[in-house]
């Protein structure tokens, strides 16, 4: 049967690492095959990231095809920075793991 792809966590195929730079957070996401990267690059737009992480405000996205990776900078997520933030996870250490746990439609043949 061929229905729409089943929703599974992004982390089934993608790794991530996140951290802080002053009041901004960065979130790098990578996958391990060229086909997965083509899908990721098309799927994980800034708009899609904001849907998956509604806490995000202004976001920049950079492509690193050599690493099969996307890097996002989430501006102002951490207020005035680690030493002052009252945000849950003030250094955005687990932002990447949160993203990996969000469910998205990943084509069967890429999993």
């Amino acid at each position: 049967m061929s229905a729409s792809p089943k929703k599974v966590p992004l982390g089934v195929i993608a790794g991530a690492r996140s951290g802080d730079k002053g009041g901004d957070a960065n979130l790098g996401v990578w996958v391990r095959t060229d086909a997965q990267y083509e899908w990721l690059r098309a799927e994980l737009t800034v708009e899609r990231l904001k849907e998956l992480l509604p806490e995000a405000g202004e976001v920049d996205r950079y492509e690193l095809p050599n690493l099969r990776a996307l890097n996002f900078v989430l501006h102002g997520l951490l207020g005035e920075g680690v030493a002052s933030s009252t945000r849950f996870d003030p250094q955005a250490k687990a932002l990447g793991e949160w993203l990996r746990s969000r469910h998205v439609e990943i084509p069967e043949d890429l999993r």
Partner: protein
Amino acid sequence: MIRVGNASGFYGDRFSAVREMLTGGELDVLTGDYLAELTMLILGRDRMKDAALGYARTFLRQLEQNLADALARGVKIVSNAGGVNPEGLAEAIDRLGLGAKVAYVTGDDVRDRFPESLTANAYLGAWGIAECLSAGADVVVTGRVTDASLVVGPAAAHFGWGREDFDALAGATVAGHVLECGAQATGGNYSFFTAIDATRPGFPIAEIEADGSSLITKHDGTGGAVTADTVTAQLLYEIGPPAYVGPDVVSHFDTIRLDPHERGVRISGVKGSPPPDTLKVCLTTLGGFRNSTTFVLTGLDVEAKADLVRRQVEAAIGPAELTWTLARTDHVDADTEETASALLHVTIKTADPQRAKAFARAGVELALASYPGFHVTAPPGDGTPFGVYRAAYVPRSSVPHRAVLPGGKVVEV
């Protein structure tokens, strides 16, 4: 080839890593990063209390236990543990009396231009470290240099790179970026941790070649893993645009090539271009005082319980400067008390230390007069100071980057 290892990714990292790196296998240089943005604030406060402090004291203890061994093995030590007082740290290392040739790098302190800040430090590059090593130093301590400079400096000194060897400098910068967070390159904090043995990752080593390319590896027999995935994870840590700006070179992360190797991962192909003529400055200031409490709300009426305690606290000290979050960790009809409970967090940030204390009192005084089942995860304290970080930029020519060589000779970098 030069083997550069890392034994610390932050002030507080595994104390025994220095010994593990010295005794676990071959090494030419051992580096350690001790300075996060927040650490500058902590060290700045140490310096306020005692002008002789302001450096990472654990590093001094690590040297006390391991420097003789490093000297015997001919392993050079390069670290930014000098914090806001590299000269003080160099003197303390001299006082260990082990006969090491100690040099330090200074000039990063630019508080004279930012008098409102507790700390103001320009991110220096690798050339001061390279001067110290070329002059025969066994130990080089610095203040605020970029983390990658701890790796670039030894490579530049070893190979005699010039300031316009941008590709080589960029290659070494990428190796330095991989190493600067210690075990985060070798399987620590790694998304696919279930696929490796992440129990006790070894610390990373870069075997750097004359062209700036490198092999990322770790000592034989240590835990964790060095794969294209673990290295990619660290390459993506705390970066912005692919043009990664440093004081000595702009390293183009979109030119990095990773190839699996039987002992780890090869990094090659990195392109570099000239750096800007400004240096980034890390500014920290004391922002005030912070205090927090977590109320446990168990069972029924969680929203109403949260509303009651919030009204009570706000009536006691006023609603200003409070941040409330209710984490609905509770489950309906739960079969353990913990999974029946939600957590209500409240934090105050205020310039007034008395108000931070009043916040704690207000929380305690509710103990017999609030919602049913009232308790907190820990009694609130008096509050702690918090810092505010920001970045600024200054002309490179205005920063007096200096290497103070063993014996005291000063070289303008």
